[in-house]
């Protein structure tokens, strides 16, 4: 460095060098300041494509936790309602358009032999192995618009809910089963979608230098111990059989023949639509896994296979299918989880143009979200966002809060202090301060670079002059010989 400084004077004496150095410095500054934006755009567009694929795939696969299975596959009226309820609880129209953030989903491996789902942080720490899958990054997958409300600062906080309900309520797009399986495979983690599920239980905002993505961590647990979504609030909802029951009778004589107006999405399994080609066989043994998808494996392998379900032609009620799916997954009367919908937001398959009376008012907000996500949509394929944003589906946030296994009185909406063993949250910083510091840093770095460049240019010119003199004198000496 000393030699650089020692020769700066050479550069500063020469105006062309100084001017060029200043130009370079300015260019460097522009580059430094421009990089994030340019890269952000690039990343955004890239992620946007990725999100399209992820979203398209998510229409078919919802084995990423009880969230998915409860919301169940593919345009079921019941599932749609559930997801809608969930959405209304989690995202209000006013905030849905504010802050949709990209998220990295990480699957945490629990210890072998875990036979019960943790009910508190202590139990959680006891079953965590510390092994996480590689991240599954999805663009604009989380609605962070109300995240700051619970911590005062947007960054450095966590939305923590072991039941996953408060988190699910804000997830706009869940990882597909394939994505989870792929991530687990890359991390050397065994994942069996038939027997395991992922419960997304904590959201962490970006809080480190090297990792700017928001995190959502999920517990990879057996399905039998995963907290199931709460029962719908509507008491008129037909009783659903235990998911473990191998062969629920269809048509179920106990189920009402007439859809309950309070249970808009509940189909009537007793009256299967003969025009419905996809109506599954409710007696299928695998119903408890994915009852509404007869060719489950095929559909999982081929995301497009269930696309018609997602594309959401409302005239094609797959109500029995969806109903069965929910029947087999949603209700666990013994578990005090009143808000079923809170588990289902991320995988709603409700089409935008469903003509159901419960969806007869398309949500402009949902459309806004679709525009934000820039996802080509077919028949309301982005119903996930729609369901989340639509305020017409009224399940209150209070119900969502009540569903959490963590005391919401102590920690509203699940915002807690950092979980032991997880990344500690660092003090927040305002966006303006962050920008100012970045500008100061960029100016300083550019200044240092400019100084070094100026010194280099100065030395180059001085060396060039001396080299020229040397050549001239040597030439004279050789000429003298002749």
């Amino acid at each position, binding site marked *: 460095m000393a030699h650089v400084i020692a*020769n700066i004077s050479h550069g500063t004496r020469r105006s062309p060098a100084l001017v060029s150095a200043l130009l370079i410095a300015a260019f460097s500054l522009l580059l430094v300041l421009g990089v994030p934006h340019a890269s952000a755009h690039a990343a955004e567009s890239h992620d946007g494509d990725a999100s399209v694929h992820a979203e398209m795939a998510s229409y078919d696969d919802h084995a990423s936790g009880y969230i998915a299975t409860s919301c169940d596959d593919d345009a079921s009226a019941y599932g749609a309602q559930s997801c809608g309820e969930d959405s209304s609880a989690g995202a209000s129209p006013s905030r849905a358009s504010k802050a949709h953030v990209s998220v990295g989903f990480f699957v945490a491996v629990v210890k072998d032999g875990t036979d019960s789902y943790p009910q508190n942080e202590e139990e959680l720490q006891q079953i965590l192995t510390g092994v996480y899958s590689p991240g599954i990054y999805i663009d604009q997958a989380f609605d962070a618009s109300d995240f700051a409300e619970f911590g005062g600062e947007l960054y450095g906080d966590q939305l923590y809910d072991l039941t996953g309900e408060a988190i699910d309520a804000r997830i706009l797009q869940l990882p597909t089963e394939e994505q989870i399986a792929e991530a687990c495979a890359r991390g050397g983690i065994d994942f069996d979608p038939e027997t395991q599920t992922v419960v997304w239980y904590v959201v962490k905002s970006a809080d480190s*230098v090297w990792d700017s993505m928001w995190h959502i961590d999920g517990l990879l647990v057996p399905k039998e111990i995963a907290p199931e979504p709460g029962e719908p609030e509507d008491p008129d909802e037909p009783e659903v059989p235990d998911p473990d029951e191998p062969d629920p009778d269809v048509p179920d004589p106990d189920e009402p023949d007439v859809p309950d107006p309070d249970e808009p999405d509940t189909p009537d399994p007793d009256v299967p639509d003969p025009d419905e080609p996809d109506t599954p066989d409710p007696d299928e043994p695998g119903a408890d896994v994915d009852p509404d998808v007869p060719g489950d494996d095929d559909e999982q392998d081929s995301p497009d296979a269930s696309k018609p379900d997602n594309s959401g032609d409302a005239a094609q009620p797959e109500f029995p299918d969806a109903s069965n799916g929910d029947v087999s997954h949603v209700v666990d009367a013994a578990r005090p989880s009143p808000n079923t919908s809170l588990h289902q937001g991320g995988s709603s398959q409700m089409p935008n143009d469903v003509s159901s009376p419960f969806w007869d008012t398309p949500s402009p907000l949902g459309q806004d979200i679709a525009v934000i996500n820039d996802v080509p949509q077919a028949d309301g394929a982005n119903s996930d966002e729609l369901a989340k944003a639509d305020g017409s589906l009224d399940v209150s946030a209070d119900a969502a809060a009540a569903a959490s296994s963590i005391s919401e009185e102590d920690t509203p909406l699940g915002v807690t202090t950092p979980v032991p063993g997880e990344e500690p949250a660092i003090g927040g910083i305002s966006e303006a301060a962050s920008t100012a510091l970045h500008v100061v840093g960029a100016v300083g770095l550019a200044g240092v670079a400019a100084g070094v460049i100026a010194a280099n240019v100065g030395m180059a010119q001085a060396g060039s002059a001396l080299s020229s003199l040397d050549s001239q004198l040597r030439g004279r*000496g050789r000429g003298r*010989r002749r």
Partner: protein
Amino acid sequence: MSLPSSKRAVLVRAVLLIVLAAVSLAAWLVPGMLGAPSSFDSLVIAIWLIAMVLLLADSRRRDRKRKRYLRTFYIDSEASCVFGPMLGTRSYSNGSELLDLMTVALANEESAALATPSDDFAPEYVVETEDFACVRDARLQGEEPVTRADDVTVIRWEGAIVDLSTGREKEFASPFDLEDVFCPGCAEASSGESSWASSYVCATR
């Protein structure tokens, strides 16, 4: 131990530049450490560090090249003149005085101004100095410039002597090799034997 003003100024500037770089890096990294999004922090810092390393390496190379030119002396033995960018054009009467002139010029390297030779100056020999180091006599006050070769003790002087008339080049590794070349009498008196250098100079004269 007091440093010469020129070196002190260099040191101050270097420290300021380092502090500026450190503060800038800190300012850039602090938001990320406090939890703000920092998608490109590492990328920007990495690019900046790589650029700095490349620039410093190139700067070091250019500095060595510049110093080598600065430390080069052009000798016209017929006119008994020597020119150096730091020395200017000076006359000498014998080889010992020539060595003294070059030694003083090298000892005052940092504070010397650049000079240009006269148009009719045509050197016969070129003394290229690769490395030079000396110790100033304790009698010298502070930044007092060296005026006599006796004021310094040369501890390292390496380079090459080029005969421009023949193109021959001979490296030297110590002041004694130069004595052999430019002050053969001194060399013979001290070592009692003739060296390549003395014969080289005598033969070319």
